């Protein structure tokens, strides 16, 4: 069987599995639709959270980003895991005890205000749509690269699959599909990583392989060899960074508190039966995430080493076939600046802008590139995403591993998209309709509205996937920055500071949201030429500004709360209640379910 047939088989098989699970776990009440009835086992919830959390970016892009950033890639590794500690210690158990359905629910009740609820819904929708557009695009890219299907058709197929299990099954359907998707994803990530670790170091565990000696008789370790190879070619050493320490600090912090403030992650902890389960479940979630996140830096380093080995100084006419395969797709480009037929790899961009390929063929048989060449020696353009996608080919692994990677990438993108779409739809049907605009809704009507808003959200997400507003890839910073600067501080103060009143919390959220949005918007769209350390505040890039936004949120909230009215007695009692695991828990009482 050829690769394409195998890929269709793997992807088709996994889709059939997801849809089968959806039909089996159809939701019949709002409680099942919103929080899977609150009966999910902590380990299952941990897996579902891991799949929910690890998106197309984690699966496809992260190792490639690390491969090219070296030490600086740390911001993603620590930033996208450290937030779970905050979540487990500071948020998840209390929100579970609170026992309602959504994040705006908590903010609206704790700050006894529908204004607070609506502000929370607005940030939730901003965060989630930014994030979901990227996922749908990821689905399209996997389809076009592996299945020879146009990107748009790929997005539509992805929409149809998500529609099946999110609209039918709600949280219940999503949870059990995500468990399956986690298994597919992690298997697809580990198999090539183990193979490659074996090839390069002879050690089957990538986490250890990264520190081991290269099996080429040089006696150098992987990282030492990478450092010295890169320095020889004129790059900085792999294990040193280029970013300023303050920026690394701010980005890591913003990603951590952003993670802890992401609504689609938080609601996963509403689905377990008990407070103690919420704590444990966060541990399992991070354990399952860590399996991929500690493998990624190894994959990144191996891939960079392999890449340099095959490419640097090779004759184009005899270079490995993967180079030409990905050149055909447009993710690799080669511009033979000195016309010697040999590929030179060096620091800097080989030419200005994204590659534009001409129809003619160059002197060595390469695709001609029309861009203006730069003055440096580098002749190679490489899209970072191919590091994971092309890894099996680069390492000469069997065809079924390539097919597996395609199924894994789709599992990662679809599971995250479904989780995001669900929080969007519940915040509309529950927070905007039931709790604010149409208070008399029955359970059955609310469930219908939840399904309708899920369907509409999927359609919008699909539209954004097919017609990506040019900025989608640039604004991942939005999602994390906004979550860090708006939702996280409001929830944290709601639990730990009884004296925080609605005046303080609402002003804090609005200030955090507006400041972070404005800062990112300014540097990404209004003055992109100024987007460098000289113009940044305190040397903090737009990626890290959510950390400062959160600080502003806290400060403004404290100051304003001094001038507001004191918190009503019953709200103070509610805070007392969520701090204690036992007692008046509406959901464990037998008469409510």
């Amino acid at each position, binding site marked *: 069987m050829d690769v394409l047939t195998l890929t269709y088989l793997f992807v088709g098989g996994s889709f059939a599995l997801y849809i089968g699970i959806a039909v089996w776990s159809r939701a019949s009440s709002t409680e099942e639709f919103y929080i899977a009835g609150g009966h999910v086992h902590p380990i299952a919830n941990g897996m579902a959270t891991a799949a929910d959390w690890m998106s197309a970016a984690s699966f496809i892009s992260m190792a490639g980003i690390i491969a090219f950033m070296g030490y600086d890639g740390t911001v993603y590794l620590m930033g996208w895991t450290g937030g779970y500690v905050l979540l487990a210690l500071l948020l998840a*158990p209390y929100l579970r005890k609170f026992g309602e359905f959504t994040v705006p629910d908590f903010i609206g009740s704790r700050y006894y205000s529908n204004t607070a609820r609506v502000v929370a819904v607005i940030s939730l929708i901003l965060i989630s749509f930014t994030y979901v557009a990227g996922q749908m695009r990821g689905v399209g890219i996997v389809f076009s690269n592996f299945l020879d299907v146009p990107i748009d058709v790929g997005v539509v197929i992805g929409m149809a699959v998500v529609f099946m299990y999110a609209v039918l099954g709600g949280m219940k359907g999503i949870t059990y599909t995500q468990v399956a998707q986690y298994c597919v994803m992690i298997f697809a990530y580990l198999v090539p990583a183990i193979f490659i670790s074996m090839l390069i170091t002879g050690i089957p565990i990538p986490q250890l392989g990264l520190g081991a000696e290269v099996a080429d008789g040089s006696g150098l370790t992987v990282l030492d060899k990478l450092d010295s190879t890169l320095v020889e070619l004129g790059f900085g050493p792999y294990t040193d960074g280029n970013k300023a320490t303050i920026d*690394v600090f701010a980005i890591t912090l913003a990603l951590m508190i952003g993670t802890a403030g992401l609504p689609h992650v938080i609601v996963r902890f509403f689905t377990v039966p008990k407070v103690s389960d919420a704590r444990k479940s966060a541990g399992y979630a991070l354990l399952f995430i860590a399996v991929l996140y500690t493998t990624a830096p190894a994959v990144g380093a191996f891939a960079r080493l392999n890449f340099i080995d095959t490419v640097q100084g090779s004759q184009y006419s005899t270079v490995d076939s993967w180079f030409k395969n990905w050149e055909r797709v447009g993710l690799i480009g080669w511009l033979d600046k000195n016309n010697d037929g040999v590929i030179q790899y060096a620091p800097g961009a080989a030419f200005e802008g994204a590659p534009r390929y001409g129809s003619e063929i160059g002197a060595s048989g390469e695709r001609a590139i029309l861009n203006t060449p730069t003055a440096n020696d580098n002749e190679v353009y490489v899209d970072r995403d191919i590091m994971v996608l092309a890894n099996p080919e680069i390492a000469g692994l069997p065809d079924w591993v390539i097919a597996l990677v395609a199924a894994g990438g789709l599992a990662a993108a679809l599971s995250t998209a479904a989780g995001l779409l669900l929080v969007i739809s519940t915040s509309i049907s529950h927070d905007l309709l039931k709790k604010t605009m149409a208070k008399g809704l029955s359970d059955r009507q609310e469930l219908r509205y939840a399904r309708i808003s899920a369907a509409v959200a999927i359609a919008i997400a699909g539209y954004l996937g097919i017609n990506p507003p040019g900025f989608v890839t640039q604004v991942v910073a939005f999602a994390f920055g906004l979550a860090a600067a708006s939702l996280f501080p409001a929830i944290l103060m709601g639990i730990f500071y009884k004296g925080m009143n609605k005046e303080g919390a609402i002003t804090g959220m609005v200030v955090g949201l507006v400041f972070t949005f404005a800062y990112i918007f300014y540097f990404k769209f209004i003055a992109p030429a100024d987007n460098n350390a000289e113009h940044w505040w305190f040397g903090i890039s737009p990626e890290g500004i959510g950390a400062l936004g959160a600080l502003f949120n806290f400060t403004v909230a404290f100051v304003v709360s001094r001038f507001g009215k004191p918190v009503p007695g019953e709200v103070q009692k509610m805070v007392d209640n969520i701090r204690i695991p036992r007692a008046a828990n509406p959901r464990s009482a037998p008469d409510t379910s």
Partner: protein
Amino acid sequence: MENNNDDYWRANLRVAAILLIIWFTVSFGFGILLVEPLNKISFFGFKLGFWWAQQGAIFVFVILIFVYAGIMKRIDKKFGVDEEED
């Protein structure tokens, strides 16, 4: 009862604070602020600062959450605020 709940809350805050200090030390401390001096030390083929940043901190994060869940289970019982088994 009121007093008991306050004591429980203080015990909880103490545990969380200690674990968060460790969280900060391994990630922002070892992985970012102290990365250069630590990189002079070799650790299983890694520069130590680089290892903390790209692997060590993540392992500690996982352990911290399970430790918190374990300790809190004991504290919940001690103060009699644990959830009844159903």
